[in-house]
């Protein structure tokens, strides 16, 4: 089965339905008797709701029912929760206000949910919404993380004074201070990690369908983790008992983190369908997605890097203000803390690191994980300040990196992480080779002759993924364990069904997971089916995010396959009258070592179910096993990305002239799919660096509320990418895998900005480095402009 096994670029099983228009996304599903919901949203960033008059709207044509926060409160439902509790320096837990599904007396961001209008058609619901008379008392807002902590700033939640949810720290403060004092060079940097809007191409959607006969709720929703949604909706919000709630995430059109979270709209659809005893469908239009999907990033940081005279890193001190938005979303507190501060050691030998993070409420949409989640922010900071240090102390940035690389493993950083394995030189060497570093000065000169500025930028990144050891995250405040589960069921005809708690929304699990089964059992690729995304079919699961589906999800499948293989061999031994230790399985045929006796897979499978003559008490009928895999450690993908840009100084336009990415993901199952993940991640990173930025004005209105103003990367913004791979097998999971989903988005922004600043001969430029910003930077710096 080598053609469909591990390491082969097997073409994807799922493509057939997508390329023929037969994908089945939530909006493609319709239920008999279905109604349509529209959510009336707050037009104000901060306002008190004095009253809501529904009279005219309820009388509008086609309206079935309208609910407000009072109805939900009356029904005793809880609010939405944050599943990770971060503690402040004084040991107190993070502070937060209630997060109602529909607003009660106050709205806290533009797009906050005020009322749910249910009608026979979507257009009727939307029209009726215009007839709702809300008496708002508009209040001043704190939309910016830069000013939200100032005295007198408008407060988001009375429970969180100074709009501060937590002031968190990590690392060794005294040692870092000492390092800064003793250093030959101290490089300081103020930098902003720009706020982004995820914009998966499929807008969020949900269908709630209550069966009054069985009392069972079914919720179709655009989720990356349907079991987590079920758990939260049952245990915390109280929509339905867990065993009476089935959550189905069918084909999902991209997530990038934004579909991890449990949102108000899907919650309301499930709840309200029982109230009106009819199915309710809600589909966001893009404008709503801009307002109400959880956004990403949004940090303002001050960093100080201490170096010895020869460039050796002595310490790094960081103070970050992280925007949480108006409410704590499902995992928001973990992102600017344990997914950020723990990566500030980068690929480097730091004796001391100290980071403080203030988690700050603002009158903006909630901020939570977006592709990379915390790790892009850490990488951007480390790789930017390193590059500036190299320029300011007069070292080649490549040499400064080499000087400080970690080379022995395992390596304990000052910020929790224990790197299990890596080879940072190998990736850097390969990337330098692919980019032709030696030829760069000639390319720069040639560009200059054409009136263009060419620059080169590096990013040697590390990330922590394969989230995550349950005990570790539990000790850090997670309300969940981050294992994964799998069940392998062999049918009597030998066909194999794998039920996984991972969820594919573009990652190609139906293909890669099947490759693992082919590799292990030798069965034909077409005889394997991967089932995911339905709590009614899959036992349990933690879902897909944090590049965990390979390292954790496939490890669970691997463990279940171990059990299948063990049991199958036991049955084979019985059938073939041999000792179990003599049974071998190869290419779907069982053999006995040293004999020519064979037993095909399908025969054994059938025998497992006929169970004729199985020795009672020794072999149970059936061939179905499950496993829960809890990782030993995070995994640590690493690598080196190099970007070359060419800037038109007249217009400020940046063209990516060359982009090289070398990554170490450990064992790779399907190179074609892994490369695709890297491409997409890089594009999102280049988008962050050059194109994308979410802007609220001073009153909290979202200025970038559509694709007209929020600059999405398009085909002509991107180059073709040059990829390379190095490999150190991950020792922390049975697959040897590290994870590849986020690396591109983590690594690329500093590579781009380092290249832009190199090209312009300037120290800093804010992301996104738009033509206007670059032109302004050149105008302000005539020497660079020359």
């Amino acid at each position, binding site marked *: 089965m080598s053609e469909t096994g591990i390491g082969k670029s097997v073409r994807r099983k799922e493509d057939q339905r997508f390329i023929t228009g037969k994908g089945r996304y939530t909006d493609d599903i319709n239920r008999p008797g279905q109604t349509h919901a529209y959510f009336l949203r707050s037009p104000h960033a901060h306002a008190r709701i004095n009253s809501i008059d529904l009279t005219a709207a309820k009388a509008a044509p086609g309206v079935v029912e309208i609910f407000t926060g009072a109805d939900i409160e009356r029904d005793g439902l809880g609010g939405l929760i944050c599943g990770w509790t971060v503690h402040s320096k004084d040991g107190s837990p993070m502070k937060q206000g209630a997060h109602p599904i529909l607003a009660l007396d106050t709205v806290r961001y533009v797009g906050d949910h005020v009322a749910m209008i249910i009608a026979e058609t979507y257009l009727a619901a939307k029209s009726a919404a215009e007839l709702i008379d809300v008496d708002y008392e508009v209040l001043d807002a704190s939309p910016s993380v830069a000013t939200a902590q100032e005295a007198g700033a408008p407060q988001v939640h009375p429970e969180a004074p100074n709009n501060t949810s937590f002031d968190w720290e990590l690392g060794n403060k005294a040692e870092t201070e000492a390092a800064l004092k003793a250093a030959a060079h101290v490089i300081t940097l103020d930098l902003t990690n720009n706020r982004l809007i995820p914009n998966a*191409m499929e807008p969020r959607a949900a269908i709630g369908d209550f069966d009054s006969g069985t009392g069972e709720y079914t919720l179709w929703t655009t989720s990356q983790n349907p079991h987590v949604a079920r758990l939260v909706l049952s245990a915390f919000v109280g929509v339905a008992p867990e065993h009476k709630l089935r959550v189905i995430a069918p084909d999902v059109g991209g997530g*990038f983190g934004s579909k991890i979270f449990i949102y108000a709209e899907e919650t309301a659809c499930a709840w309200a369908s029982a109230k009106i005893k009819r199915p309710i469908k809600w589909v966001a239009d893009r404008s709503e997605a801009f307002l109400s999907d959880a956004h990403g990033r949004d940090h303002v940081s001050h960093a100080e890097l201490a170096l010895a005279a020869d460039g050796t890193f002595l310490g790094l001190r960081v103070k970050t203000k992280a925007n949480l938005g108006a409410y704590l979303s499902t995992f928001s507190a973990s992102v600017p803390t344990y997914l950020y501060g723990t990566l500030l050691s980068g690929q480097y030998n730091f004796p001391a690191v100290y980071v403080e993070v203030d988690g700050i409420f603002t009158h903006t949409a909630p901020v939570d994980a977006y592709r990379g989640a915390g790790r892009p922010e850490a990488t951007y900071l480390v790789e930017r300040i390193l590059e500036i240090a190299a320029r300011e102390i007069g070292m080649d940035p490549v040499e400064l990196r080499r000087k400080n690389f970690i080379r022995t493993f395992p390596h304990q950083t000052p910020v929790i992480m224990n790197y299990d394995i890596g080879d940072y030189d190998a990736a850097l060497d390969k990337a330098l080779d692919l980019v032709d570093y030696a030829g760069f000065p000639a390319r720069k000169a040639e560009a200059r002759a054409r009136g263009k500025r060419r620059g080169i930028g590096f990013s040697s990144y590390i990330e922590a993924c394969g989230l995550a050891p349950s005990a570790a995250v539990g000790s850090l405040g997670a309300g969940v364990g981050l294992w994964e589960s799998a069940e392998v069921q062999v049918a009597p005809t030998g066909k194999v069904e794998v039920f996984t708690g991972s969820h594919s929304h*573009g990652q190609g699990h139906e293909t890669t997971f099947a490759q693992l089964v082919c590799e292990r059992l030798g069965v034909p690729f077409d005889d394997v089916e991967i089932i995911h995304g339905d709590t009614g079919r899959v036992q349990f699961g933690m879902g897909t995010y944090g590049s965990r589906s390979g390292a954790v999800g496939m490890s669970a499948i691997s463990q279940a396959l171990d059990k299948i293989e063990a049991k199958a061999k036991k049955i084979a031994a019985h059938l073939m009258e041999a000792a179990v230790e003599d049974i071998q399985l190869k290419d779907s045929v069982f053999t006995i070592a040293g004999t020519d006796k064979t037993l095909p897979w399908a025969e054994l499978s059938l025998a497992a179910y006929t169970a004729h003559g199985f020795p009672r008490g020794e072999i149970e009928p059936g061939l179905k096993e499950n496993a829960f895999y809890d990782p030993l450690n995070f995994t640590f993908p690493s690598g080196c990305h190099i970007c070359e840009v060419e800037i038109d100084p007249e217009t400020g336009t940046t063209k990516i002239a060359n982009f090289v990415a070398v990554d170490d993901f450990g064992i790779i199952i399907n190179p074609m799919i892994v490369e695709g993940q890297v491409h997409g991640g890089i594009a999102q990173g280049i988008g962050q660096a050059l194109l994308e930025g979410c802007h609220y004005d001073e009153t909290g209105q979202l200025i970038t509320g559509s694709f007209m103003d929020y600059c999405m990367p398009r085909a*002509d913004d991107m180059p073709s990418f040059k990829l390379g791979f190095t490999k150190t097998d991950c020792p922390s999971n049975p697959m040897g895998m590290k994870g590849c989903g986020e690396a591109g988005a983590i690594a690329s922004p500093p590579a781009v900005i380092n290249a832009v600043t190199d090209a312009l001969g300037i120290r800093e430029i804010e992301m996104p480095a738009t033509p206007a910003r670059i032109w302004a930077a050149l105008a302000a710096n005539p020497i660079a402009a020359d």
Partner: protein
Amino acid sequence: MSVVSMTVNGKPVTGEVEGRTLLVDFLRNNLSLTGTHVGCDTSQCGACVVHMDGKAVKSCTTLALQAEGASVTTIEGLAKDGELHPVQKAFKENHGLQCGFCTPGMIMTAVDMIERMPNLDEKTVRAELEGNICRCTGYHNIVKSVLAAADEMQR
């Protein structure tokens, strides 16, 4: 309500629509052709691209009644007699899709592009994809797919 008639994927169809009913809604809701998607509300993303009288158009920016009498082809009508169109094949072969949501629009745009333009090169393909947004692939493999399909179709 008005009655609209057109040919969709080679079959005559008739339905009742409002003046404001978009072509995409007619296809998805009246005809259950859910392969055509809606990814934005400002005519930018191209997930809704279909062919109308042989030309790529955004079905979210076309009224159903504007298509009266027209011949419309959607992603569901691209394969003939069970045989995938070369562009469909090329997207699969070159991993030109991930989540699949933008894919129908991408493929319909690519077919139109290849039929209109001989000798496509990478720069032209990227420029011609201006009206189609993908968030997954970074466009790398989409461009590769289109070029491969063009090669195949113009051979």
